């Protein structure tokens, strides 16, 4: 019989990308199956789903057979898998493409595991030392207690290694501008020192970068690590590629382009971020797996074939995190053989699935 907590904790103490894919799948499948039993027992919606599809958990032998729930379902159903009395926090993610709000119930155990996981992943990129944390956003983004956007998630998650935090933007009448006094202070105090930064990709580009260039401000952060995420759709519309973005930002900070790190993540899988390695690939940590599925057949895609990204995770026992099908497209680049040395599946994000635009006469019944 597997002792879930000790198994998961053991995985969380290892180097995050040490497991080869086959070995990882074997370990995760065993853990996931136990978690599924718990989910079915504790949530009638999940029980409905399993019974209507005739799924026998004991007969699951491969990780790709774990039933996935589309990420949108967090907007319509309570997917809690633990006693409601144990819920300490409900993440409400506003998302970027819909008016509805996702609800992700968290218990103490899940929150702790998420923090451990994030620490483990970040340490692989920046070591264990606390550093000055520069947030390329305004301070209000971290104030809200009810809403939890991708921006908030990023700031809170990455602050785990923060010695001190500085917000480089300010909000005035709903508009973001440079927080020049803070920027001045940061330049004076920390130029040449070890710092790390986070921002929403589109805000970094459209607000921070453009205003920094306009005001001719430059930094001397040779060893900065700039983590950024989200908003690629808008950047693509502006014909800004990932490479161009990295070059532009590295020149602003006076650092190497390899220190500008794009990552992929979602509020429904808090605790896991998929950060670019030096080869530009996103790696999957020990406690998680990524399957790219053909959007039509739902079967796993071959290496290089674009499909829907599914994220599996063993971090939560408070909600169904075990297999979440995203509405993002990406492709697996390879398995176990990235030149960076990290083991497991490595992949790249391509785009969000565009909302279906019905061009024609077949339409709603509403007048």
């Amino acid at each position, binding site marked *: 019989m597997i002792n879930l907590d000790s198994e998961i904790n053991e995985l969380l103490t290892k180097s995050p990308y040490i497991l080869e894919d086959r070995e990882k799948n074997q370990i995760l499948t065993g853990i996931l199956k136990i978690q599924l039993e718990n989910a079915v027992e504790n949530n*009638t*919606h*999940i029980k*409905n*789903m399993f019974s*209507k*599809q005739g799924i026998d958990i004991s007969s699951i032998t491969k990780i790709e057979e774990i039933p996935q*729930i*589309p990420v*949108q*379902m967090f907007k*319509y*159903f309570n997917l809690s898998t633990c006693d409601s009395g144990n819920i300490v926090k409900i993440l409400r993610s506003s998302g970027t493409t819909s008016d509805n709000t996702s609800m992700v119930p968290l218990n103490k155990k899940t929150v702790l595991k998420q923090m451990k996981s994030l620490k483990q992943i970040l340490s692989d990129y920046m070591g264990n030392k606390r550093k000055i944390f520069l947030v390329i956003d305004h301070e209000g983004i971290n104030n809200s207690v009810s809403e939890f956007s991708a921006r908030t998630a990023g700031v809170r998650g990455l602050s785990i290694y923060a010695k001190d935090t500085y917000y480089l933007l300010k909000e005035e009448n709903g508009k973001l501008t440079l927080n020049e006094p803070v920027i001045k202070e940061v330049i004076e105090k920390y130029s040449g020192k070890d710092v790390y930064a986070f921002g929403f990709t589109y805000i970094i580009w459209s607000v921070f970068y453009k205003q920094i260039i306009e005001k001719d401000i430059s930094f001397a952060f040779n060893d900065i690590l700039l983590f950024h995420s989200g908003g690629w759709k808008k950047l693509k519309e502006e014909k800004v590629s990932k490479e161009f973005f990295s070059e532009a930002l590295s020149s602003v900070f006076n650092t190497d382009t390899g220190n500008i790190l794009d990552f992929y993540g979602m509020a429904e899988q808090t605790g896991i971020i998929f950060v670019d390695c030096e080869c530009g690939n996103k790696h999957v940590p020990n406690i998680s797996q990524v399957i790219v599925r053909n*959007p*039509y*057949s*739902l079967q796993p895609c071959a290496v290089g074939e674009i499909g*829907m990204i599914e994220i599996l995770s063993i971090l939560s026992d408070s909600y169904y995190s075990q297999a979440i*099908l995203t*509405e993002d*497209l990406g492709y697996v680049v390879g398995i176990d053989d990235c030149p960076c040395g990290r083991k497991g599946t490595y992949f790249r994000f391509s785009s969000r*699935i*565009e*909302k*279906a*635009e*019905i*061009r*024609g*006469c*077949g*339409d*709603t*019944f*509403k*007048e």
Partner: protein
Amino acid sequence: MNFVVKCYLLDGKFSEQNPDNFAAISHIVNANRRALYELPLPIIIEMLSAMGKKIIKNPHLNKIQGMTYLSLWLRKKNLEQICRINYGNLSYPDSFSKVENRFKLTAQPRGVVCLWVAANIPNLAIISIIQTILSKNGSIVKVPEENKDVLLDFLQELATVEISYDDTNYSAIDIVKAISVVSFEGRNHEISADFSINADCRLIYGGSKAIQSILALPQKDHCETIVYGPKYSFCVFDHAFIESDLFENSLEKTAKDIASFNQMACSSPQVLFFEKSKYQLQHIGERLGGYFANLPEDLRIQPTDPGILANIINIRAKYLLSDDKSVIASDDLSWTILIDNDLRLEEPIHGKCIFLKEVDSVDNVTELITRKIQALSVSILDPEKRENFALEATYCGVDRIVSPGTIHDYDLPWDGILPLSRLVRWTILK
């Protein structure tokens, strides 16, 4: 103006050009429509009918969904019937004809018709062009890039049609010369406005947003606008029909109605309502699923927009997670049957995703009808009950009451419109 228009057919020549504006195109089409006007209507019908026969032999055309149907639709008898229903008298488009001994009447073409054709049905442009030809108008068709080859292949073939009638030779090149095929970015207001202002008549297909923006474009004061707007279709079955021998065959035909055009047409059924009968809804769903599974490969597996696939994944999950709902579906996303008893119409998902609902009485369904319901496939066994239901349903807003297997038949009137009679000016001579 940054004028980015591709013109694929002008003055009978099939070559890509980038015109500076639509005035030049309109001028040529307008000049060439005289030759079309001088062709007697029976000759035009003969040539279109000859084209119908050619479709079957053309390997490019006969593979396209809906083209076999189109070749049948172009039968001489059918075209004559269409003209009779629309004009009342086949001689009106050719000459003045007496009306009840009071005065004479003729149907004159409006001039140049500009057509905005939607992308969801590959042969929609062809069907629209036939109407402008039968009304002897010149046409400029804005065709979706992805469907332009279907129309151009059709017109290229049509241009080769020649017939002899009463010792006179006629060539369909005179028809084709009165047609121009263009494409441009519909969101470009300047180009769209220029296109619109050149029209004597506008024929528009599209969803709500497209229709509203086209209607807001400038137009000539005399311009007539015919709108085939967004519509919705569904089916009802009464218990007597469900329990009759006719049901099985109708269920199979309904599966094909849903599958045609990957459920993207305004005539595609989105919901099936079944009156309570001796059969459980789940059982009916499983039988319908069997017909989906046995659809011909080209109907079962059709290219589907990833956004629609995501919607199918989401709606399947919603029904799986919910109480009192069930799903019968293929392993892949080729077809999905969603079962519940909520008495309502559902937003279309498309991609062969159909909602099945049980109702106490088919009469309950009429309260759901809006003015946007295009076709209602009605399977009610008793003819009198069916006709009474049809009368009430059409009063509530439905345009067409049909039987399973005929929902996509291109009947005229369509959407409540007799298009040929609107594509002409009715002129009198006293």
